């Protein structure tokens, strides 16, 4: 399973939307109903647990789209 597919699953199960609606260019604003501030904090927790990373508070505000998260993971050595 590619990193993108893993990320799709994490986002889908955390903010409760179908995985197929998440594309390589999706962002928080595309799902304003479900990906709200509560969902975002849940997502940060889920990302940490799924990919074994440690996020700082400053990172929360940056990781608001699939491309930004994928880039962050790549920078941590996860492709």
């Amino acid at each position, binding site marked *: 399973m590619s990193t993108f597919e893993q990320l799709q699953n994490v986002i889908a*199960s955390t903010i409760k939307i179908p995985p197929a609606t998440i594309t390589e260019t999706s962002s928080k604003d595309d799902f304003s109903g479900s990906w709200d501030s509560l969902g975002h*904090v*849940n997502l940060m927790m*889920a990302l940490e647990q799924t990919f074994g990373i440690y*996020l700082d*508070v400053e990172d929360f505000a940056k990781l608001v789209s699939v491309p930004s998260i994928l880039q962050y993971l790549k920078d941590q050595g996860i492709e």
Partner: protein
Amino acid sequence: MVHSKFAINKFLQTSSRSELRALLAATGVKLTLPQAQEIIAHAESLGATTAFRLGVIHTYTSDLLDPWLNFEAALQGLALQIYHAPYGITFQEASKNSGLVQHQPDVTLILLRREDLHPDLAYPLTRLSPSQQDELRNESIAELISLVSQFREQAVGQIVLTLLPFLNAPGLGLFDAQSERSEAVWWAKLKMEVAARISASLSACLFVDLDEVLLQIGRNNFFDHRFWYSSRFPFKTEAAQEIARRVVGLGAVIKFPKAKVIVLDADNTLWGGVIGEDGLSGLALGPDYPGNAFVDFQRRLLNFQQRGFLLALCSKNNPVDLDQVLQEHPHQILRDQHFAARRVNWEPKPDNLKALADELNLGLDSFIFVDDSSHECAAVRYALPQVEVIQTPSKAVEIPFCLDRVARLEVLSLTAEDLTKTEMYAQERMRREFMGNTGNNGLGGENYLQSLNMKMTINLDCIAHLSRLSQLTQKTNQFNLTTRRYNEHQIGEFIANKNCLVADFSLADVFGDSGIVGLAIFTIRSDNHADLDTFLMSCRVIGREAESAFLHALLRVLADRGIQEVYAEFLPTTKNGLAKDFLANQGFLAVAEGGYSWNLRNQAPKNQAAFPVTVMIDI
């Protein structure tokens, strides 16, 4: 902290929720949220769920607990509906038409920070002198009790009160423990007094000490500073899970049939080895490994007795072999007198469980079955799905605490009756033997009943019995005419209400005192008519005409008070068949709409002499 990736397939292959819970507890894994979601889906497929309504009052972010609350609920077979009050403690939520009250919660969880109790707690406690500290503590406790009391006045279900532990170690550092201004001591005293005040004056209210969670998982694993400072949510995943498990566990205690008996296997459960094959000296039971783990398990089981649970024995053995261990093994802690009942034979265990249920007069849904054998556990799960089955871990070192996380073994209150349960059952065993000896083929009869010298004490509107009466409404399934369940708050309202009569009785005989075992609640209408809302009796005292003596004594009381007519009804359930004909047999007349009535003007209740029970009414 890195979470290892592993397959959760084994969880998804479990075929019962108790199996799933046991596997999760045994594996001790740290699940990710997505994994938890998958397990939730699987757990939901394992059978029907029971609704559980939770209300949350909070001064810090609480909705981030939801995924874990939902997870724990799915594991227990509860369909959770949560209401989070709008941010902050608003007394509006403690009013009659609040969102909280409208949600009709079974449990209301109050999440408070310690600093909320008093503005002066924003500054170091240690700047105050000991007497100033005492004053501050008294004020803080008064604030807290006042807050909780306001919620208690409304129908908000069982209240669960928590105080968030401190993010940091005490301000004085290592010296705090020895300082006369110690922070830790101050909070310990506060918790102690809060708990005492709640026990004394607030019904259906439980203080759940989150410091115990802190002890269990460690401060480093409890607080998430990033989520705290960014979103005011204090918990790391492990803390959120532990808190959710405890809160939802209380939901299981409230919503499911009350557990009453722990039925234990013997070989490889209470000791290592098989007595019939290894002999007394071949058993692992004593100061060395692995025997010491089994000894600790037996010790831990004594604690469950203290919680008011009965222990029973169900073992495939020759009785002679098993008795040798109970009577002669020097390290055996559980002896014959600790077991309320036993089946030691070669019959299938499901049949033995049914026989135990008959003997103890308890439903199988109050049984918790504990056995090391996969085969026996599967057989019981299959034949008796209402029995909760716990398979003991295969590793001896994990056995001693294997029952500590069983939700239905938690208790919300303890009464005097709970502490003497086993004695009561031992007395009952003696009564049965006596009955056999009074020459009636074990069928009782007047000879036997008269020789018991029974004395019934009836109390009316007795607030001191609140906890026990609430417990009785929740635990009594068989001799119960209407099966209405009331928490302590609701019973308190009945007692306080001048237009209600709450009567209870205890029964003593030559063998001992059974404690409070019966309850009747009448509501009196302005036209001198009374309705019998509740009439129930513990099956422990069935067969002695106590229920009849009680009913007629109360009818006499009502007649003395000028009541002209009493209406009653029987609401059938799957369990109360034995009470079906009670009203008719006592002299009530069936009326058109399906209830029963007793006209006290032209039909007198029986007097005391009609029953082999001396009745005393304590007003």
